[in-house]
């Protein structure tokens, strides 16, 4: 399988709340975009997804998490299969209150469920944080190493790639990328909502 980039955002410029090309999942607040980063604000939970393009059901979301040592209630994470009206999304996070590791959780129809906790050394250097979902299998990578093992979950089948943060004065997003997971050597034109070639959603069938 291979990545097919659908969208990128380096969060240059200032925008508060983050809105251009992004949608905030209902019940959450939009992140703050400032100086090349997307980040949270005190006492807020932010789950937003890139809605300027559509994504196939098999998708990934990744960003470089800069200075990613959240403390206290601070959380930074990446998300897939997000939808706003149904309050959906799979999220992988590193958390201040578990500052040597992270949690995988899901929002399904507005219900928040933790699926996995595992520890690793998060450190302070900028690292690539990635979540991907193929069919019913979720995988999480930090700096290229998989954590949490393969997670099987069937709740969510579609949506958008996105980011999550919570009260994150540190642990913010830099150079985000979202896309599809396609057969290596195959692929198809990137689906673009604005001005692109009309795409065709492929039903991968096996669930």
């Amino acid at each position, binding site marked *: 399988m291979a990545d097919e980039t659908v969208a990128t955002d380096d969060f240059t410029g200032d925008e508060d709340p983050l809105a251009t090309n992004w949608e905030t999942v209902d019940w959450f607040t939009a992140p703050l975009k400032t100086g090349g980063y997307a980040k949270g604000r005190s006492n807020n939970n932010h789950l937003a997804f890139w809605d300027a393009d559509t994504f196939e059901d098999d998708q990934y979301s990744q960003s470089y998490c800069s200075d990613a040592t959240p403390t206290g209630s601070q959380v930074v994470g990446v998300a897939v299969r997000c939808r706003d009206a149904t309050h959906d999304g799979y999220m992988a996070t590193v958390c201040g209150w578990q500052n040597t590791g992270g949690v995988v959780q899901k929002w399904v129809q507005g219900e928040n469920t933790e699926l996995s906790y595992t520890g690793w050394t998060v450190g302070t250097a900028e690292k690539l944080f990635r979540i991907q979902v193929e069919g019913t299998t979720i995988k999480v990578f930090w700096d290229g190493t998989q954590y949490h093992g393969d997670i*099987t979950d069937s709740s969510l089948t579609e949506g958008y790639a996105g980011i999550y943060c919570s009260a994150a004065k540190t642990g913010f997003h830099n150079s985000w990328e979202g896309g599809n997971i396609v057969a290596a050597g195959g692929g198809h034109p990137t689906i673009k909502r604005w001005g692109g070639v009309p795409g065709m959603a492929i039903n991968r069938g096996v669930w």
Partner: protein
Amino acid sequence: MAKRLYIVPKTGTGGMDDAYRPKYFTDLDGVSWNAMDYGLEPHFLVASELTTDQHSALVANADVIAVPANLDAQVGTNRDAVVDALETLNVPAGWVTTTMTYRKILKIVAAIMLFAQRLHGHAGLRIFASGITLSTKFNQLPANVRTKLIETAKSMNFDTSSLSGTSTVRQILKAMADQWGSKDIKIGGIVL
């Protein structure tokens, strides 16, 4: 100890700052775990590697089911106890036989859980809403639930012929699980 499987209740309210999570495990500082929820039903299947002391403390709780460490052992004389334990959680288990391994049984249980998850994600419904039991017949379910069950099965590319007439919830859940097929179900590195 090696990684083992447990079935534990949910704790939490499912809210923003109080997620559903497996009871007892989040109190174990630094212990990694993976959990599979039964949709909106109140239990998790959990994989975790505990110390002997942690394991002993956990299984001392009456609401915890510890699956034997050897998943490839046959259930044998434990069959009735396994059936009772699962059915208490509204997991149909009359199909369990003495020659089945724990791994085979758990794969079917996990597949039932995954169908319940899809029902939650697709329709926002739980299976065992008020008054619904394993013996409830399909034609006794509310019309919207019948419709959503069929849509959920179709979303998983499952045959829906069991979702009709006098089929019981017990029969329906087993029929859905059987259609998961040979695809692995993974939890915490354990392959079912």
